[in-house]
């Protein structure tokens, strides 16, 4: 097979049975599916970010500023649902997992390509159902993304489409996870033993297990809400004998591990980027693998720390707080390992590296502030306040968002075969980073002062910090605009990228940019460790 032929049949130019957009939305190629996810997620992300901005503008001053309380409640609910179920949960696995997992383990595709395409269709269908809740009869749902009982039975708004949408999205998540597990088990290239697998696939493996084992629980819980609202079967409504706290148990049995569904792949991305730009192996590969699996496992049993004020038994509170502190350890190990990876490296200061390092910084703040929430006494004071919102955004937006942008810049040349404009990329990063800190840091203080979350209006003593926070939001949105415009422009007009612009050691850098339809002409035989830089060539 000649090289020129190879160039022609890059996955972007491939002509299959269908033409135009159908060549994409009916393609079973994992790379095209990854881009389908990227574009859908980016669209939802812009909507979600604007909703977030609207909330911050409302909170810039006490009282009504730009919207009614009813609208505000609908806005934070929709912001939560889109951001959680449509963006951060599928985010990294569906976009970068799909694109890179097969390539990084030396396979031509995932195990079940058609199932993979089905996942995307289910995702779009679920998103459509969830979003339809905004436009039907009784107005947008106003329960928050947690759908707590019994309020979710009492509100007259369109709960059902929102809940069903989340249920359907769960299916998509499960199918992706299932596909990844089988792919990793069955399709690793010859010679790639488990401990020769790069860390991003490892992270996806841990994530996939959580997706598989936690999502059904929230699925059935959401179905119970549907049954309770439509058929009046008593599950959680106290007037029918139910226990609203049990709803919280079931909800968090999923939704706490869901945080690890979000953050594990982000950690995987960082574990890829740091070695490449430090030009040395990741520090303590095995420790990172083990901590990935430990986080996935222990993370399953700490859900109760969302419920320390809900009225659980003292024993349960004790146990959950203890387990929560345990799960901090593997995350701490990872941070130490990442920092140690830079020691005696030869660091190239490129955009993905900036994103990765700022990830480290915000992740440390997010993780350390989590200690306040894991501890019983302090949790009670800051639970359900702006502190939780700040912590959560540092982990989920700070963690996943930064990792997403890091990944986007890092693998951009591989995905599009073009380079982004570095000057604009760095400018966008600086503005975004500043805006992010100005937006969320004051919320920690507001929370400790006692400002409850999901408040449309607040007492005067909170107003100063809220102004700062809202101005930060505006700045951050500017940063986002710069970043996104730069990437969109570069995908079309950027300079042609080399196969391996960063000198990355993993398999995806050993094939052309953009990859050919089936990734590899011949399945590679792996004999090296994943982060062995001895024979890596730039270019």
């Amino acid at each position, binding site marked *: 097979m000649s090289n020129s032929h190879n160039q022609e049949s890059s996955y972007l130019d491939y002509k299959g049975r269908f033409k135009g957009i159908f060549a994409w939305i009916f393609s079973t190629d994992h790379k095209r599916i990854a881009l389908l996810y990227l574009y859908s997620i980016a669209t939802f992300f812009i909507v979600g970010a604007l909703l977030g901005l609207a909330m911050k503008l409302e909170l810039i001053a006490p009282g009504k500023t730009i919207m009614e309380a009813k609208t505000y409640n609908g806005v934070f609910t929709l912001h939560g649902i889109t951001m959680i179920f449509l963006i951060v949960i599928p985010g990294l696995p569906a976009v970068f997992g799909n694109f890179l997992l097969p390539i990084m383990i030396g396979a031509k595709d995932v195990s079940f390509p058609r199932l993979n395409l089905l996942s995307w269709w289910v995702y779009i269908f679920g998103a459509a159902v969830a979003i339809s809740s905004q436009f039907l009869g009784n107005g947008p749902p106003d329960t928050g993304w947690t759908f707590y009982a019994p309020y979710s039975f009492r509100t007259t708004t369109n709960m059902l489409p929102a809940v069903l949408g989340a249920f359907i999205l769960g299916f998509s998540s499960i199918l992706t996870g299932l596909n990844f597990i089988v792919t990793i088990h069955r399709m690793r290239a010859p010679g790639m033993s488990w401990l020769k697998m790069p860390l991003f696939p490892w992270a996806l493996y841990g994530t996939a297990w959580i997706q598989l*084992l936690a999502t059904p629980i929230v699925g059935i819980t959401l179905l119970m809400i549907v049954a309770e609202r439509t058929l009046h079967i008593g599950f959680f409504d106290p007037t029918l004998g139910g226990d609203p706290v049990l709803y919280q148990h079931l909800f968090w049995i999923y939704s706490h591990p869901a945080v690890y569904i979000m953050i594990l792949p982000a950690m995987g991305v960082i574990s890829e980027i740091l070695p490449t730009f430090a030009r040395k192996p990741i520090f303590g590969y095995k420790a990172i693998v083990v901590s990935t699996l430990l986080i996935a496992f222990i993370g399953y049993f700490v859900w109760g720390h969302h419920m320390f004020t809900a009225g659980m038994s003292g024993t349960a509170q004790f146990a959950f707080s203890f387990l929560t502190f345990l799960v901090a350890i593997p995350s701490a190990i990872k941070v130490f390992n990442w920092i140690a990876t830079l020691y005696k490296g030869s660091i190239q200061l490129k955009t993905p590296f900036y994103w990765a390092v700022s990830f480290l910084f915000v992740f440390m703040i997010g993780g350390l502030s989590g200690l306040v929430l894991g501890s019983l006494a302090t949790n009670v004071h800051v639970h359900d306040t702006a502190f939780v919102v700040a912590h959560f955004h540092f982990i989920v937006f700070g963690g996943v968002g930064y990792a997403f942008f890091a990944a986007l810049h890092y693998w951009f040349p591989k995905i599009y075969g073009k380079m982004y404009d570095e000057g604009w990329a760095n400018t966008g990063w600086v503005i975004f980073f500043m805006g992010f800190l100005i937006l969320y840091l004051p919320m920690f203080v507001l929370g400790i002062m006692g400002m409850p979350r999901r408040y449309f209006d607040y007492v005067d003593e909170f107003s100063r910090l809220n102004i700062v926070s809202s101005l930060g939001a505006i700045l951050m949105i500017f940063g986002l605009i710069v970043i996104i415009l730069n990437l969109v422009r570069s995908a079309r007009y950027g300079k042609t990228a080399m196969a391996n612009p960063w000198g990355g050691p993993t398999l995806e850098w050993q094939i052309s940019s953009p990859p050919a339809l089936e990734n590899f002409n011949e399945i590679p035989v792996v004999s090296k460790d994943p982060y062995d830089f001895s024979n890596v060539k730039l270019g």
Partner: protein
Amino acid sequence: MDNKDNTHIVKYRTYLFVLITLIVFTFISVAITGIQLGKLAVVGALVLASFKSSLVLWYFMHLKYENQFLRLMVGLVLFVFIAVLIVTFFDYSFQ
């Protein structure tokens, strides 16, 4: 990739034997509830049900003949579920 690691054919007789055992145990569990055992009835019924479902898993679902990995995963999933149940009861049984 090897597709041939499961060529074991289970004999009809084995299935028949397992089926008879399952049915016998079904009647045993029905009979047990006739006796007033109080709290033990719950435990007894669940133990019997677990035994029956292990038979189904082991023979009907071929776990006996599958590779180690699958057995490990089934065990892990059951462990996770039971652990979640126990942790939930940290709340309810100490209220």
